[in-house]
């Protein structure tokens, strides 16, 4: 399987911008060349046309010889048409006939080196590229015009003699060098300029993109360099452009949340490992020692009893973990009829009455008989009972637990054992317990440290909120845990 190499934004942009810029330059250069070619050719053609007209102007219909055209150009005007190196060419016909009125000496009696055009423009001219007799590239113009008659005054009578105008066709050909040479120079200059500008474009595009995309590269490097096993609280990148600011802030927010979640998971894993492995270690160590030194039957029976207590503890941990898992994955069941709180609280008090009596605790219940909330009875009972059990465990013997029951609200207050503000940050985490009650068999009470986590999950699942506040006064410190549901 071939790995697909990820494309680079910078490379793609470099290519696209470079090709785009070069294309624009090429089109611009070609357009400029074409405009110059048209302009130069038009000027050249105009010059040819004026030459043709000049030749036509010296072609006169002869009044004394009707049907005859006299070509009367001065010799110095025809210098360029003489047979010499690189001459120009012309030929004049009676229009519509092959009868030649005149032709340049450079043609040396030969016919004009191009076929007559089939059509002419509105001004009677037609222009085309031709190959000159000496092999040069040339351009020829045909001009269909009139040889006007010369007016002759009779010296005897003074009468003016004239004749009818005669249509003639004038053709002039000259080499294109006057057009092609400047065009070659322009083309060479444009090509050189284009290459230079193309190279400049490549360099400028690369530099601009490199500099412009530097913040993106820095952000990418910072994200790529993240060590997933040791996530930082955030990316230490300052001065990012506005376009990336939101992304950086969201990444930092995600990192913060992920780090916090990982830290919670690490604490949970450590606590879970301790809670689950310690009783197994207790059991194995107990059995190893007893098997190695069985001693008396009484010793063995005592060890088996202890093993049973440890087994019960392990079962309690497993059950509580399952309850926590269920509470975390429970879905809120719509409860059309509000559940009255009073019977739920009374039932919970009844269930913990033995523990309350053992610790000689006093319970004060401030109960609104009509209090109810839209939570299913099972979840509500679990919330109240877990909070009560927790309060019983953390209240010193002989202490007081206050319960306040209002519509959509349940609160419990007690004087906790050595609880601090910092403990409030962790008390809803799974397996969290104060030192005094952390060891199951030491305390003699089955307290896994999952009760508040279960309450928090159930409260959240039922749309409620749980909060814990520590109030210190002269009477001592009191912990208030309150669950509120929306009305």
């Amino acid at each position, binding site marked *: 399987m071939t790995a697909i190499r990820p494309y680079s934004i910078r490379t793609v942009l470099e290519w696209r911008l470079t090709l785009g810029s070069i294309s624009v330059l090429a089109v611009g250069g070609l357009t400029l060349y074409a405009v110059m070619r048209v302009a130069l050719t038009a000027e050249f053609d105009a010059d040819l046309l004026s030459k043709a007209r000049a030749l036509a102007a010296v072609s006169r219909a002869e009044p004394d010889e009707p049907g005859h055209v006299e070509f009367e150009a001065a010799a110095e005007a025809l210098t360029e048409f003489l047979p010499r190196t690189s001459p120009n060419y012309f030929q004049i016909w009676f229009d519509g006939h092959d009868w030649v009125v005149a032709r340049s000496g450079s043609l040396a009696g030969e016919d004009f080196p191009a076929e007559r055009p089939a059509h002419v423009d509105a001004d009677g001219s037609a222009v085309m590229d031709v190959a000159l007799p000496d092999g040069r590239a040339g351009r020829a113009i045909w001009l269909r015009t009139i040889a006007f008659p010369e007016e002759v005054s009779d010296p005897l009578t003074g009468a003016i003699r004239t004749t009818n105008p005669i249509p003639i066709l004038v053709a002039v050909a000259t080499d294109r060098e006057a057009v092609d040479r400047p065009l070659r120079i322009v083309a060479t200059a444009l090509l050189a300029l284009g290459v230079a500008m193309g190279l400049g474009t490549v360099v400028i595009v690369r530099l601009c993109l490199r500099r412009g995309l530097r913040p993106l590269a820095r952000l990418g490097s910072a994200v790529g360099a993240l060590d997933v096993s040791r996530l930082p609280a955030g990316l230490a990148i300052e001065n990012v452009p506005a376009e990336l600011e939101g992304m950086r802030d969201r990444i930092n927010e995600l990192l913060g949340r992920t780090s916090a979640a990982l830290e919670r998971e690490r604490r949970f894993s450590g606590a879970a*490992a301790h809670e689950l*492995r*310690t009783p197994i270690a207790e059991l194995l*160590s*107990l059995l190893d*020692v007893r098997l190695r030194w069985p001693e008396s039957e009484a010793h063995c029976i005592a060890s088996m009893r*202890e093993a049973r207590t440890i087994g019960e503890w392990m079962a309690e941990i497993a059950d509580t973990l399952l309850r926590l898992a269920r509470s975390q994955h429970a879905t809120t069941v719509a409860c059309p009829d509000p559940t009255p709180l009073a019977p739920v609280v009374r039932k919970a008090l009844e269930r913990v009455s033995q523990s309350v009596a053992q610790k000689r605790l006093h319970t004060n219940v401030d109960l609104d008989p009509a209090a109810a909330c839209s939570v299913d009875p099972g979840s509500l009972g679990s919330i109240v009972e877990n909070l009560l059990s927790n309060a019983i465990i953390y209240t010193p013997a002989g202490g007081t637990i206050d319960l306040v029951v209002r519509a959509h609200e349940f609160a419990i207050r007690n004087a906790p054992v050595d609880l601090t503000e910092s403990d409030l940050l962790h008390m809803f985490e799974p397996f969290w317990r104060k030192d005094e009650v952390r*060891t199951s068999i030491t305390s003699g009470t089955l307290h896994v440290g999952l009760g508040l986590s279960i309450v928090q999950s159930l409260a959240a699942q039922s749309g409620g909120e749980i909060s814990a506040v520590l109030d210190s006064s002269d009477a001592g410190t009191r912990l208030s845990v309150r669950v509120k549901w929306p009305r």
Partner: protein
Amino acid sequence: MRVLLVEDSRSLQASIAEGLRRSGYATDIVGDGRQGLRLAETGQYDVVILDIMLPSMDGLDVLRRLRDTGSTTAVLMLTARDTVPDRVQGLQLGADDYLVKPFAFDELLARVQAIARRAHGAAKSVIDVGPLRVDIIGRQAHVDGRSVSLTPREFGIVEYLAHHVGTPVSRAELESHLYDEYAKITSNAVDVAVCSLRAKLKAAGCPPLIHTRRGFGYVLNTKTRTE
């Protein structure tokens, strides 16, 4: 050998301490970090078995503070945390070994023996003094290849003296390494145990190797001079 067990689980405290004592180690137990540190700092322990998650002070804090005082007492970390960073952290702080819960008691005992041996500078698991061979791992003494039946206390004495072969060991030092705080020690308990030990070794054909340094204590060597 005297071991301090710092562990908050009462069940583990009881079973480990029983196993160690039956293996000849005087074992003191404490259930929280602060008390554990206080006792470990006295320096009278050959090995400290230290849990990490402890009430009042984390086991890693106990270890850090213990090492900060310059203590070189061998420490075996005992914990439920098994991740590499946890182990590395414990060892970097100066733990001599690391054992993850749950564990077999035999493994715990072997590790305690190994780090105690290293703590006393003995690389081998057996120490030979003349015809006497002290098998640290097997908790056995042999004279010319024949096993000598010793009580855990007697073996503890010969083991400790073997670790300090040629060096006089005071009665108080022997007491502190052989008896934990729960032991009822009479004024001549060490002398009685040494006497019994000598008798058993002599019965096995061993020449006198444990010599009395009058007014001080005992020394184990192959020289025959007895004061």
